[in-house]
């Protein structure tokens, strides 16, 4: 059974066919990267998986279940988490509150229990806090724990975005351009983190990325898209040397 499969995805926006017959599979424990020029439809695939859009055709299958039409808030509970290209953090909350929100899918308390703050709720809050602290340790966010997002620099916000996704304890993590806006050093750090996420945490990673060296370093398999259609699929080297990819995207 494949871990995650996209079959013949299609979506139209008005008259524009943003995705046309995109199919790929991701094995468990892999790092799968999607590359392509801007407007190729990479983030659109993510938006379909996290159910912000409905596809006009095709299917998404995750852990043997068809998730093409589940409601958007169900996706986290099923084990898929994502980061956003333009950072969708909760601006007026602290880092800690953002991360605790990542635990929302695993909350066990009901409204009435929370209203009176029964001991069960307190226990759960402490348990969530432990999990969040583990992620904070993993990504070195200790100094920013109580800072408001609005006061943080861009690089830190990107890390918090990833941390929040990790707090949902996903089985599949969608990273949308994790290295955009980061310096060379920060990008190298990101590469280590992605590898750690795969090997230490056992999370499968599906990534959209423009930085070819990062792609080459961490990816197991790569899919190249152009104008909503797949043009190459294989290992990083195979795709980077594919003539169509070079013509459409890499230049040279």
């Amino acid at each position, binding site marked *: 059974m494949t871990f995650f499969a996209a079959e013949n995805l299609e979506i139209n926006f008005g008259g524009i066919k943003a995705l046309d017959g995109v199919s790929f599979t991701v094995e468990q424990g892999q790092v799968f990267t999607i590359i392509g020029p801007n407007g190729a439809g990479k983030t659109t695939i993510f938006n379909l998986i*996290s*159910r*912000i859009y409905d596809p006009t055709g095709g299917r998404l299958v995750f852990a043997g279940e068809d998730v093409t039409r589940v*409601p*958007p*808030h*169900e*996706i*986290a*509970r099923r084990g898929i*988490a*994502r980061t*956003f290209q333009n950072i*969708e*953090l*909760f*601006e*007026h*909350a602290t880092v800690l*509150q953002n991360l*605790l*929100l*990542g*635990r*929302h*899918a695993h*909350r066990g*308390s009901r*409204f009435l229990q*929370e*209203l*009176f*703050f029964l001991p069960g*709720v*307190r226990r759960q*809050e*402490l348990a969530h*806090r*432990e999990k969040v*602290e583990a992620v904070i340790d993993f990504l070195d966010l200790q100094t920013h724990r109580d800072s408001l997002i609005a006061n943080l620099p861009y690089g830190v916000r990107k890390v918090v975005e990833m941390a*929040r996704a990790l707090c*949902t304890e996903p089985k599949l993590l969608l990273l949308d351009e994790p290295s955009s806006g980061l310096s060379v050093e920060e990008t190298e750090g990101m590469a280590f983190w992605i590898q750690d996420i795969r090997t230490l945490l056992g999370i499968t990673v599906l990534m959209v990325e423009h930085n070819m060296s990062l792609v080459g370093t961490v990816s197991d398999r790569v899919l190249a898209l152009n104008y909503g259609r797949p043009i190459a699929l294989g290992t990083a080297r195979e795709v980077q040397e594919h003539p169509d990819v070079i013509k459409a995207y890499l230049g040279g």
Partner: protein
Amino acid sequence: MRFVFRTAYGQDLGLFRDGVQRNWYVLLLLGLIVLPKLVPEYLVDLSLVFIYGLCGLSLMVLAGYTGLVSLGHAAFLGVGAYAHVYFTQTLGLPWVVSVALAAALTAGAGILVGLPALRMTGVYLTIATLAFALIIQEVFARWEHVTGGLKGRAVDKAVVFGVHLGGDVAFYFLCLACLIGGLWLTANLLRTPTGRAWVAIRDSEIAAQSMGVNLAVYKTIAFAYSAALMGVAGALFAHHVGFLAPDIFSVLLSIQLLLMVVVGGLGSLHGGVFGAIFVALLPVAIAQARDAVPAGVGRLVGVLGKGAGDAAFAATDRFVKQPGLEPGIFGLILVLFILFEPLGIYGRWLKIKLFFSTFPLYKHATFRRQKAYMRSERLR
């Protein structure tokens, strides 16, 4: 400068930052308990402060924390008030049962009003709540069997568990107890997943959904809880005013309620309470100013000569005694706060505390707002 030294996660969960803050609040409570002895002539006004405190709490949950601005909250106050009076006086139910039922009924109305909220955002929601409130106000006027219609309905004093709480002091403590209860319940919600989900909905609905927050459920809970608080406030309000009529619960009252959260400071429980104190005591202050200001102006100008002083007194007196002045003052205060102190009274309080705690290193630029450019909120 105080260091807050944490040794356990449980300390972050608590209602108070540390023992010192808790002690300050205990002191405040003791002060409030002793207050009736000190200012007995203001007890009725102070009871209104507590009732408005519940209203401020309610609107703070909805507008401040969840980001759903309601211009029709006075209607919920009315539903709670009329329901409570109907249950106690027409049906003869016990006080506590009646209040609980009134709160539940108002929560139901809140869910109804919140249904459109599930599909629309921003200003559209505000307009929808306004429309609901105007419709509900018309229902108050027409449903004579329950509400007494335009003739209105008299309200008896409160009798809780057989104890007559009609006296000013007893009613004062009743309202205080309800306010403290409301604060405790709301603070509980805010430190649990529900409260965090509300904040998430306010800041980014898309991200909230991808974290597993069911928008429809939590928006509905926000409306229902907010309306339930208003229901309880409505019951107390009915006892306070003594006589219910539909035009009490008008758009102007809704605007006053929103004024509370703006003036108090969005996004904090303190803000709701500060705003309530301000809005409840403002008419009292205006009434006193109406007498004091002309006399003061007269005396000031009287330095130039008795005739001039008398003329100035007469002119100012005529001006401040006009009936249309009070809404204008409310409007002016609202405008001034939004222009010059958008963080509200609580924001100013925080700035003052920061000043004293970092003295003499306080930097004025700490709170300076960045120049912001307007971006389209249509595509949120």
